[in-house]
């Protein structure tokens, strides 16, 4: 019985296509997303982990061992003000290609859009403790004593400086800022990019310039701020300030 129904449905589907002949609509565009990383003009990939030296604004030489960060609420806005959510959230891991380049199941009409926005980390509404099973499984949680929810970024590595030639570790971890016991401050960053033309371009490339975390507006001194930063309110806020210039968005094929 099921087979007969299936056959009928297929036949109807094939026959019904005939009305489109000669009047093909402009196809919608399937959106894909790239999360790429660079250190100013140099691309940063997994092959750089543990090997490539980067020099920060303050003169320290860094070697990155691990980079994971969270991007959420990627939204396209069209000229009518309609919002199209491209993705809920993605934990980006420099060693996991599936998080660096991925196809969405979102199709959008071609044309000019007023902008794209996304959130680095989670906004207050989304940053709920323990609710995302995949992020729990990835040990991405932010301790409850620091406000709970989830990490926004985990950037680990080692550095040397003119005054210290022995490599020292750094853990540039970002998330909710703890003001005092039981008092917390949201620390996410909303990024807005205006005026995008989506025609043949189908890929949204969200670029993170890692160098910006260390230089603008605060010149980060790793000799002072290297580890134990999660509960350091001032450090968390300064990460947020520097993070404002970290991201950019490009469209491509």
């Amino acid at each position, binding site marked *: 019985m099921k*087979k007969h129904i*299936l*056959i009928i449905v*297929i*036949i109807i589907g*094939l*026959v019904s296509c*005939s009305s489109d002949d000669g009047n093909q609509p402009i196809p919608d565009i399937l959106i894909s997303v790239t999360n790429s990383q660079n250190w100013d003009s140099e691309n940063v990939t997994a092959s750089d*982990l*543990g*090997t490539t030296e980067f020099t920060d604004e303050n003169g320290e030489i860094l070697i990155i*061992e*691990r980079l994971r960060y969270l991007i959420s609420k990627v939204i396209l806005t069209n000229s009518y003000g309609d919002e199209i959510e491209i993705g809920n959230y993605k934990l980006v891991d420099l060693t996991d290609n599936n998080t660096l380049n991925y196809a969405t199941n979102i199709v959008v009409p071609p044309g000019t859009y007023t902008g794209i926005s996304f959130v680095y980390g989670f906004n207050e509404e989304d940053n709920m*403790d*323990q609710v995302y*099973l*995949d992020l*729990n*499984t990835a*040990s991405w*949680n932010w*301790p*409850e*004593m620091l406000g709970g929810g989830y990490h926004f970024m*985990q950037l*680990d*590595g*080692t550095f040397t400086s003119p005054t210290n030639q*022995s490599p*020292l*570790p*750094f*853990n540039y*971890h970002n998330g909710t800022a703890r003001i005092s016991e039981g008092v917390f401050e949201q620390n996410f960053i909303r990024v807005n990019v205006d005026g995008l033309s989506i025609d043949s371009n189908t890929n949204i490339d969200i670029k993170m310039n890692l160098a910006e975390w260390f230089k603008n507006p605060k010149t980060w001194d790793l000799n002072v701020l*290297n*580890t*134990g*930063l*999660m*509960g350091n309110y001032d450090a968390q806020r300064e990460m947020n300030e520097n993070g404002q210039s970290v991201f950019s968005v490009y469209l491509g094929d």
Partner: protein
Amino acid sequence: MRCFLIILLTSFLMSCSSSDDTIEYQAIPKDLEIPQLFSNLLLPPTIPSDNPQTIEGVTLGRKLFYEPLLSGDGTQACANCHLSENSFTDSDRFSTGITGAIGTRNAMPLYNMAWNFEENFLWDGGAKSLEEQVSDPIENVIEMNNTWPNVVATLQSTSIYPELFTQAFGSSTITKELVTKAIAQFERTIISGNSRFDQYLLGDQNTVTVSEIRGFNIFMDEERGDCFHCHGSNSNPIWTDNIFHNNGLDSSFADLGLGGITGDPLDNGKFKSPSLRNLAFTAPYMHDGRFETLDEVINHYSEGLVYSETIDPLMKNIAEGGAQLTEVDKADLKAFLLSLSDPGFTINPDFQNPN
């Protein structure tokens, strides 16, 4: 042209009806018994599509796990080095194989392996699935020292196993693949999720002490224990990230760990973070069993870190030799860690020797 396509498609679909008469053997599916805390917080466990859990498969796998015929001289089973009372490891630093040879790594405890989502098993990630992991000890000359052809022939010649394989897989012809599948099915059922701290996380405030709670806070405090970045948390109650780290044990490496598998010098000295469940039963500790007590483990992270080029940056207090915990902090941390042990797990009748 379209009409021709429709006719062709219709004919094809009609012709499929003859295959309905073929009945493939299907053992009875058996879901894993997932602890409530796991289902509340974690992704569903990993079950390979080509080896679904079945009642008959688990029964066979359990029998094989305790079967000494798997070893070269018929004296050792998997369970000889993976004892239930020790959370499926043993109390030796290195286990002894059938020839009297001694291994070079501490036997890993076995539990909650279906939540190892990257499926990198063993201390060095040398096995890429649970089924593959089963294979190695049987052939390892310093462990069970057998060959797979001999294992298969031995089991095939028994009066009982061909029938058990028929019940589990629909074929009395025993193969290496089916042996490893059955044992892997049993191993996936070895689940530990009912410690006192689990009960606390599920809402029973009376199951843990003040000291254990203080210890948990040290565990979660980046400025003190900072254990949670590698060893799970109240949000990831597997209590491991199942990832490989160099945790500052040595300045050079006699055992390369992950680097011996990948060939990448950057991986030298990296070993998998073990789960912290059931530490009350799993001494000695570390990949080489160098620490006989939990106190020694805590002292290592507090004062004993050693620098090497691949040391994980999360070993952040390397310049000071470790986290410099106070004696009170150490005692509280130890108390918390032991609250993750689950005595009922070690005597669960479903995991005992059926032979």
